[in-house]
């Protein structure tokens, strides 16, 4: 019997994942990560509050599987949270979920699962995988396109993907809820916020003000011509495409066009100046293990919540790619991932520069 560790959060998706695997005959163990929270915010952490720990333990008891909580606070703080703060310090808009998936879930937790003797680590992610005819592991979008989480899983390598299971990706969210009822699992609906877990439901700007105010220093707001229009409070507090809160009197709406960390300036302009047909991505992970030999026409997703857009994707040397879109894209944001899709297949992705 194959042994699988399920990353449990107490939520309905990972609970049903565990139940499905048990039903499929796996030897199932539940594990929950205790992630880092700011002092005093532990109750509000979206992923690992005492409440969700109790809920996950309850689900494990109902399913009669062993369950362990594993502490990863220090590593989470020194990697995920640090990368988040470093990213803002460098003037980009970081996506800490990508670091968490690579280093924490499919790094630290996977190592722990293997140490327990598991063959697989399963999660409640909405995504699918399959073995291609050439024997390679393929990552696919979830059946439920609205819930699809394959964007954050593009960081997986062949080896990791081979050790991963995504049991809920074959179902729609309503089906998962129905399954939870059939399995007699608690289905208390928790808010499906897409905020970062360690922000505890608060604005990221407040988090930066409390934890690293030194990375956000006031500077100039310029237009494309280099004319000073005002002062910003710190580049970290703005994001590409942002219109509100610039504090500049203007007859036409102004938007954040770019952020220059070297000069600590914020460049703004009118809506027509927004958008670009091209981006370069670095640290690209090709799930197949190697970059394609030539340019491909693919759908590219540039934010977790963005719609895919058609583009020509050309691999460059040293893990970089250039992406040329067929239509201009409005809010290409350095620090977010560009993820490449061929139909439902996730080919890979990298960080927008």
């Amino acid at each position, binding site marked *: 019997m194959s042994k699988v560790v399920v990353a449990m959060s107490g939520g309905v998706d990972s609970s049903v994942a565990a139940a499905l695997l048990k039903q499929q005959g796996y030897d199932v*163990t539940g594990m*929950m990560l*205790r992630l880092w929270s700011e002092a005093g915010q532990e109750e509000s952490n979206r992923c690992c509050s*005492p409440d969700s*720990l109790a809920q996950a*333990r309850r689900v494990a008891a109902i399913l009669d599987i*062993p369950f*362990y*909580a*594993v*502490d990863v*606070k220090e590593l989470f703080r020194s990697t995920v949270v640090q990368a988040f703060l470093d990213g803002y310090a460098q003037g980009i808009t970081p996506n800490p979920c990508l670091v968490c998936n690579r280093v924490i879930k499919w*790094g*630290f937790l996977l*190592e*722990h699962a293997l*140490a*327990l*003797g598991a063959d697989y680590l399963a999660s409640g992610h909405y995504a699918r995988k399959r073995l291609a005819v050439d024997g390679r592991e393929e990552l696919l979008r979830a059946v439920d396109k609205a819930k699809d989480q394959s964007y954050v899983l593009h960081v997986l390598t062949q080896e990791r993907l081979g050790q991963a299971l995504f049991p809920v990706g074959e179902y729609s969210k309503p089906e998962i809820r129905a399954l939870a009822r059939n399995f007699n699992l608690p289905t208390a609906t928790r808010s499906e916020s897409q905020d970062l877990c360690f922000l505890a439901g608060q604005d990221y700007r407040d988090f930066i003000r409390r934890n690293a105010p030194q990375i956000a220093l006031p500077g100039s707001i310029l237009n494309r011509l280099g004319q000073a229009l005002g002062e910003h409070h710190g580049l970290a507090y703005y994001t590409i495409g942002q219109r509100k809160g610039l504090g500049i009197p203007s007859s036409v709406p102004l938007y954040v066009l770019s952020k220059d960390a070297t000069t600590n300036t914020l460049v703004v302009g009118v809506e027509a100046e927004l958008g670009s047909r091209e981006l370069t991505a670095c640290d690209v992970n090709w799930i197949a293990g190697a970059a394609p030999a030539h340019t491909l026409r693919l759908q590219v997703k540039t934010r977790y919540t963005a719609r895919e857009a058609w583009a020509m994707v050309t691999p460059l040397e040293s893990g970089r790619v250039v992406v040329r879109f067929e239509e201009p894209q409005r809010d290409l944001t350095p620090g977010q991932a560009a993820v490449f899709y061929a139909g439902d297949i996730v080919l890979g992705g990298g960080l927008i520069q």
Partner: protein
Amino acid sequence: MSDLVYFDYAATTPVDSRVLDAMLPYFSETFGNPSSVHRYGQRAEAAVETARETVAAGLHCQPDEIIFTSCGTESDNLAIRGAAMARKTSTGANRIVTARVEHHAVSKTAEQLEKHYGFHVDWLETNEYGMITPATVEQAIRAETALVSVMAANNEIGTLNPVAEIAEVCRAHAVPFHSDAVQAAAYLPLNLQDLGVDLLALGAHKFYGPKGIGAIYVRKGTSLLPSQTGGGQEHGLRAGTQNVPYIVGFAEAFRLTVAERDRRAAHVLPLRDQIISRVLEEIPDARLTGHPDLRLPNHASFVFKDMDGNLLLTLLDATGFACSSGSACKTGNPEPSEVMAAIGLPSQWGLGSLRVTLGKDSTAAQVEAFLKMLPGLVMKARELNRC
């Protein structure tokens, strides 16, 4: 669960089948309320009073010095809160002497009295074995001391305290002395004529009785403010209809413990010593916590440098051995315990604790299997710690 080896008898023990048999008639047959006038009540009352006599005989005290409670924690709460409040009312004394290494049932109660009820807690220093000496207690006692509380045996590291000597010190200063004997009761002869304590807390599930039943010894003349008021049961100190079957179970478990104590201790002691010597020999950077000799005969506790104790427990459980890190913590929250802090462990050691506690069903073969697995699992936990 048959594939799991249970090495966590300090957390709780299985109910002895003889104890269960003694309890069963008191659920549906002899079910009366001990306070009732009729014969149903009389039979239930007789069962409770017989149980009280049995416990008193085992402790060498008078039956009316025994109060049944719902658990060891309640016993500690009643002893400390009750004695401290009574002393404060009668003499104005407002200081409590106890230690951070005590079970939370004691230390958190003392903290609450300090925070909300106008007491001040004098925390006792311990030595490197987590032991509290009579001299330390003597230094801490002042004119305003309302109560001293020192445990008989430490739950995390197994160290025994010189309870009789501490009791002498307290008596010389006319300060009531409470001792939490919840861990000690399974293995130490608790002769109250020798121990000289004024209050002593016990819980049945540590000696093969059921959970949810405890007792407290209250020496005649020790005044307590009741923690629970109502119908005046348990000499007015603990109101509420008595849990008759569980009280019967407590008494039977305690009677068997007194009768079999030496045999049980002789069974676990060599197994414990084997665990201690082999672990210290075979695992690098391992230390025994608690006293090497003055410790519970079923209790082996260690720290391993640069290792997450919770992770080791997870690996052990997955391998088939149920152990503990010292306190029953399921949350995976790696805070060093007060005990680890009190015995002065450097930070690379403080989180790597392991407690192995044996019982009457433990076997040499189980210990051998455990000792074969442990070095590899410690190594694995250390490797994972680094990743």
